[in-house]
């Protein structure tokens, strides 16, 4: 999802949200208003509502008090010489015109009448005023005269108000009170406002009841959806943080609360009487408060998504500062003394904790558990590293320690171990690679040698079959034949030697019966041995001696050994083959007497291209022993030779299977 798309959805949420909030506030206000009115009944009229009744009652007593007790009568507009109950009196037009409540209060004791109607031709006598009120306030009225209340307000009948203070006062002072509400609510006052609210509440009560839960759910939904799209991510998947989000949480909250307070301040300015100013201030205040809410939500969500909610707090920073500072100080101290310092700290901690009673003991136990856990952990890590080193020492370089699992110095050590293992592993694979390339080269070269060699061998053979009388030619041909055969053997052995020494051979390991194998191999060489008078003496105690090896290659090794014997053993001597079990190992020893003096060391003999006879006039490439040794090693065995005077020994050691 693109960031533009995400931002779009987020902004849509932020626009929807205030609308829903306003709906919710209005609905709650409406419902609570209705409840404050004591549950408006289905057919109830405005004049019977509690709030109206309260207001009306308030007006009655308020106006009464004002006209009787407060007004400076000389200041007001007057009509004198009017007839009040047959006596001469006057009417005072008080300046309380800006309400829909109209009254005529007649003070019979002083023959003064008060009204808040305008002083016009139609209101210049008591009768006219009464008439005016009767017509103009016919819908809602309340009159009191000579102990009688006539009204159509159900809650202000004589029964309902006769014990109220204001009414008793009115009665006491011999007052007649005529009042009513303009039929047309021409003046914007409390009454009009209440009337509107009453009608609205009455009409919108049911929708409000429904709107509260719906708008609440919608608000939560919009917040949740919006929150999902808060916190855009850059191309690396990191949450993009703005200036505010990067501040410490405390500072961010402080800034947001300052903004919130500014919004609240606007609201307090609403106390003005000017509706326009009220509206503007209220609007601005709401926007600011809403903005602070949005900021709070944004920064919290982004911090959670970027996982900085806790890290970016003063407490966490302080903790980190403390921790890093401590470890830095400790690092500066010589590592040798570190453990001593730890120990001293441990002892001191124990001594301090001993001063406390029960909690101290508990803390000491906790401390000990912690220390034992730590020490044990270190020991485990140490032994893991030791095991890894042992593996490397044993030749397994595929060792890897996860550095993350180690702490402090051991972490460093584990890295060194990994580097050493990696270095070894690289060196070995490099070596294997070069060995393999060498083998490939030798194999390819041998192919190229074999083709011309084939022609040489074939044509020498064909020449030999021609009728040649010249003895010299015959002799020369024989030499060429001999040498070309040797070359053939050499090329073949070369490939095999390089393969065997580089381990480039696929082994098919099986359980091999040594008795069977040696007898088979003797069978193969019996004729050759007989020719030069060699007798084999096989000494094998147990016919069921098994080793794990590849039959073909172990046979190749024996073949080489027997072939060597047939070439280098003294005629008419004996060949001893002893098979012994030594612990879990099988040792096979081949012994024969060399016909030539062996003035050469075992090591030299094992080298490639070295042969027992210095004159090199016997057949063979000189690779036989080397091939045998490599093949034996590949199959997990040992191949050794031993020279003792003329006694030549080959010793094969295999694990018993």
């Amino acid at each position, binding site marked *: 999802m693109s960031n533009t798309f995400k931002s779009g959805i987020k902004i849509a949420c932020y626009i929807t949200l205030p609308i829903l909030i306003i709906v919710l506030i209005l609905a709650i206000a409406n419902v609570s208003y209705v409840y404050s009115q004591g549950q408006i009944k289905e057919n109830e009229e405005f004049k019977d509502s509690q709030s109206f009744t309260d207001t009306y009652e308030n007006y009655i007593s308020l106006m009464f008090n004002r006209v009787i007790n407060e007004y400076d009568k000389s200041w007001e507009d007057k009509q004198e010489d009017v007839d009040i109950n047959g006596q001469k009196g006057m009417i005072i037009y008080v300046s309380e015109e800006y309400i829909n409540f109209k009254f005529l209060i007649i003070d019979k004791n002083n023959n003064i009448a008060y009204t808040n109607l305008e002083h016009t031709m139609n209101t210049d006598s008591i009768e006219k005023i009464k008439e005016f009120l009767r017509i103009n306030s016919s819908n809602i009225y309340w009159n009191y005269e000579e102990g009688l209340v006539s009204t159509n307000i159900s809650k202000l009948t004589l029964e309902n108000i006769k014990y109220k203070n204001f009414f008793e006062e009115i009665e006491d002072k011999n007052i007649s009170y005529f009042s009513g509400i303009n039929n047309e609510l021409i003046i914007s006052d409390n009454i009009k406002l209440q009337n509107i609210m009453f009608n609205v509440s009455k009409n919108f009560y049911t929708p409000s009841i429904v709107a509260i839960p719906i708008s609440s759910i919608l608000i939560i939904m919009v917040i949740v959806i919006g929150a999902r799209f808060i916190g855009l991510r850059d191309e690396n998947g990191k949450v993009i943080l703005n200036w505010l989000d990067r501040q410490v949480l405390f500072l961010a909250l402080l800034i947001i609360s300052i903004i919130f307070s500014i919004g609240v301040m606007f609201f307090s300015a609403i106390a003005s009487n000017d509706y326009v100013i009220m509206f503007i201030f209220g609007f601005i205040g709401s926007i600011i408060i809403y903005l602070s809410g949005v900021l709070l939500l944004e920064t919290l969500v982004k911090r959670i998504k970027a996982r900085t909610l806790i890290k970016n707090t003063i407490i966490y920073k302080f903790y980190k500062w403390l921790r890093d500072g401590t470890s830095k100080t400790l690092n500066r101290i010589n590592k040798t003394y570190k453990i001593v310092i730890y120990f001293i700290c441990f002892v001191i901690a124990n001594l301090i904790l001993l001063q406390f009673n029960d909690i101290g003991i508990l803390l000491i136990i906790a401390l000990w558990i912690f220390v034992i856990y730590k020490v044990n952990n270190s020991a485990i890590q140490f032994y893991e590293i030791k095991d890894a080193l042992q593996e490397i020492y044993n030749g397994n370089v595929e060792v890897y320690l996860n550095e993350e699992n180690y702490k402090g110095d051991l972490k460093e050590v584990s890295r060194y171990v990994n580097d050493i293992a990696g270095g070894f592993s690289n060196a070995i694979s490099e070596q294997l690679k070069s060995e393999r390339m060498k083998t490939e080269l030798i194999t390819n070269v041998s192919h190229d040698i*074999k083709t011309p060699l084939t*022609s040489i061998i074939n044509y020498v053979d064909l020449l030999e079959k021609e009728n040649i009388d010249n003895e010299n030619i015959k002799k020369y041909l024989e030499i060429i034949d001999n040498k070309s055969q040797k070359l053939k053997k050499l090329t073949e052995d070369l490939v095999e030697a390089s393969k065997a020494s580089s381990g480039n051979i696929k082994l098919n390991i099986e359980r*091999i*019966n040594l008795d069977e194998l040696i007898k*088979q191999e003797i069978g*193969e060489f019996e004729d050759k041995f007989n020719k030069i008078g060699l007798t084999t003496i096989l000494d094998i105690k147990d016919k069921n001696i098994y080793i794990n090896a590849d*039959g073909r290659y172990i046979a190749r090794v024996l073949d080489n050994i027997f072939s060597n014997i047939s070439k280098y053993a003294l005629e008419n001597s004996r060949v001893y083959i002893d098979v012994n079990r030594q612990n879990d190992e099988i040792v096979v020893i081949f012994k024969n007497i060399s016909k030539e003096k062996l003035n050469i060391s075992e090591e030299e003999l094992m080298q490639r291209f070295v042969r027992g006879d210095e004159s090199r006039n016997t057949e063979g490439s000189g690779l036989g022993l080397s091939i045998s040794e490599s093949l034996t090693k590949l199959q997990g065995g040992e191949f050794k030779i031993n020279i003792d005077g003329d006694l030549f020994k080959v010793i094969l050691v295999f694990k018993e299977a």
Partner: protein
Amino acid sequence: MYNILVCDDEKEIADAIELYLQREGFNILKANDGKEALDIIDKNVIHLVILDIMMPKLNGIETAKKIREDKSIPIIILSAKSEDYDKILGLNIGADDYMTKPFNPLELVARVNSQIRRYTKLGAITRDGNDGKNIFKTGELVINDDTKEVIVDGKNVKLTPTEYNILKFLTKNKGKVYSIEQIYENIWEDEAYGAENIIAVHIRHIREKIEINPKEPKYLKVIWGIGYKVENLD
């Protein structure tokens, strides 16, 4: 007269092979590469193909595959490549035999003869035999127990009685591996004949008599450290 196609980019090798095989009475056709070989096979009646692997234009493996698409003539691959992998590949794509260079001319001739006999007289020997009751056979190795005759690739082979018994026993139970001791017990039953070591020597001798190359036996195989068996080739 059988026509043999020799296909090798090394002209001298093809010439030498020609010389050897002409002496055996074969008619030789020569090709320098795979394409030429396929051409010749298309235009002539060929009874056997000797194929080199490393050749220009079309190599031996591809050529053999092409030949096998519509012909069942014997193919002997003759290559300087001596890896097991190459041999297995060659035999798998349909070659009947695989020889490595430098080769022993006598062995090549023997193998050619063997393939030709098998190809031209397939099944002839079994017709000679009686109801087949006393005939033991694997591939081109046939033992007639009535006449005590051993025939390999149509040629009579002379074996000593012990050798005959060993071979008969193993052929009767072809495909199964027997150790020296088991063979000994089966041949001599309860007779105390002497050193059982001699079995290995006999087997070596049998191989020398029935196999073209005793070191790479086709019929009587050495399973090192386990025993011997006669391969089941049917």
